[in-house]
């Protein structure tokens, strides 16, 4: 069945492309956090330099999705897969954008004395990275159960964010001289919290793709 073999090849190619985009977003996040907690400005610049390539990858995934919709008219599980990938690509690109924002914050903060809350941020960053990695693994394996487990972890990242938010506000009140740096860290924490939300979106798309169940706004 020649036509089906071509479609399968195109779907495999699309899967490879979106996983590459996911891998790039993962790397950007990991490097951005390294640049912040390791005070490594070269790593931060590398994240920023690489962002255009990630944008291009997103456009490429988009193009592949449009081609498959237009030329193959996928149905059922193929339709759900292409639909999920089409929605996942901008989410991954936005995660990379958040990584860029973290890298920019690192570039500002690395020239200033270190703040003690940066340790809490390291933990939050590790959690966001680990969730993103687990979400992409679950997507690769079409594993909706694993995706649901990742979604549960978003509450932990939200708790961390809330704790850090209060600590940083307290810090600003106690030591106004650190307020500018605290505010930057607060933004970093918010970026990580948003990445947790985006990882949840990816997992919800996985559940839709795998089980045809729409779970967004339901947990």
């Amino acid at each position: 069945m020649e036509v089906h073999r071509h479609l399968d090849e195109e779907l495999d190619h699309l899967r490879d492309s979106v996983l590459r985009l996911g891998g790039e977003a993962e790397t950007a996040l990991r490097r951005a956090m390294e640049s912040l907690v390791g005070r490594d400005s070269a790593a931060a610049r590398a994240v920023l330099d690489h962002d255009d390539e990630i944008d291009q990858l997103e456009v490429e995934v988009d193009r592949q999705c449009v081609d498959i919709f237009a030329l193959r008219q996928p149905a059922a599980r193929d339709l759900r897969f292409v639909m999920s990938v089409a929605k996942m690509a901008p989410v991954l690109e936005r995660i990379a954008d958040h990584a860029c924002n973290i890298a920019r914050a690192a570039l500002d903060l690395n020239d200033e004395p270190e703040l003690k809350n940066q340790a809490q941020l390291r933990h939050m960053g590790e959690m966001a990275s680990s969730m993103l990695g687990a979400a992409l693994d679950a997507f690769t394996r079409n594993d909706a159960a694993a995706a649901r487990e990742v979604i549960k972890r978003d509450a932990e990242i939200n708790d961390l964010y809330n704790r850090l938010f209060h600590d940083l506000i307290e810090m600003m009140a106690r030591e106004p001289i650190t307020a500018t740096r605290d505010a930057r860290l607060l933004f970093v924490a918010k970026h990580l919290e948003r990445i947790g939300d985006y990882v949840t979106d990816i997992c919800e798309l996985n559940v839709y793709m795998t089980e045809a169940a729409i779970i967004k706004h339901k947990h």
Partner: protein
Amino acid sequence: MSTTIPTLRPKFEITSRAVLPSRETKIAVDALNFYYGRAQALKDITLTIPARMVMAFIGPSGCGKTTFLRTLNRMNDVIPATRVEGKVMIDGADIYSASADVVELRRKVGMVFQKSNPFPKSIFDNVAYGLKINRLASSRSELEGRVEEALKDAALWEEVKDRLKSSALGLSGGQQQRLCIARALAIRPEVILMDEPASALDPIATSKIEELIMDLKNQYTIVIVTHNMQQAARVSDLTAFFLLGKLIEINTTEKLFTAPDEKVTEDYVTGRFG
């Protein structure tokens, strides 16, 4: 006329969450078997078709979808050595009962075929034919009115109103097919059966037929057999998938094409069948 709708065993539950308007049952088929000689072509088909909706039958060649369509107005009666078991109820009356009037049935259940088959007559006479032989118009002006109405309903009036006396054979393929639909509509049926009505037409003519189907469903119950899955997806509210003479799945079209319940349906609609 009886309007009692029998309660048949629910063999298939439509599982989509899509909200369908609540409609009365127009056609209810129960445990239908059909045989060509000793070969069984339909096996234990049970389904209901709601009024004023479009139901599409899909499935690979030889799956029984056209045979099933033809059981709905007893078109298979003309094939020798065929046999039907089970019930086909239309508006609560069994069309295979001894007392059923086949002429009345075919007046109520019109049919449009794959290949347009206009008579070698004028456009007007093609549409007027059924009205004349059934004596459904009492005067010339009534006849003209009914012909105009049918041609308008079939979205053909504007294209032919100035040449009603010209031969129907001079129309394009798409126009001929819409003329056949107008001919079916002229006698005001309640159900229209369509057997691949656009398979021989170009995309523009196909799209006109599809638009027409969507317009007509406000007044008629439409059952369409199609090999073109995108066409089924575009025009129908409900889709039934047949395989080897069996009804595998019936679902809302949206559900069947995005998340079918049966794996074999999924394999078919994704083109990985066989």
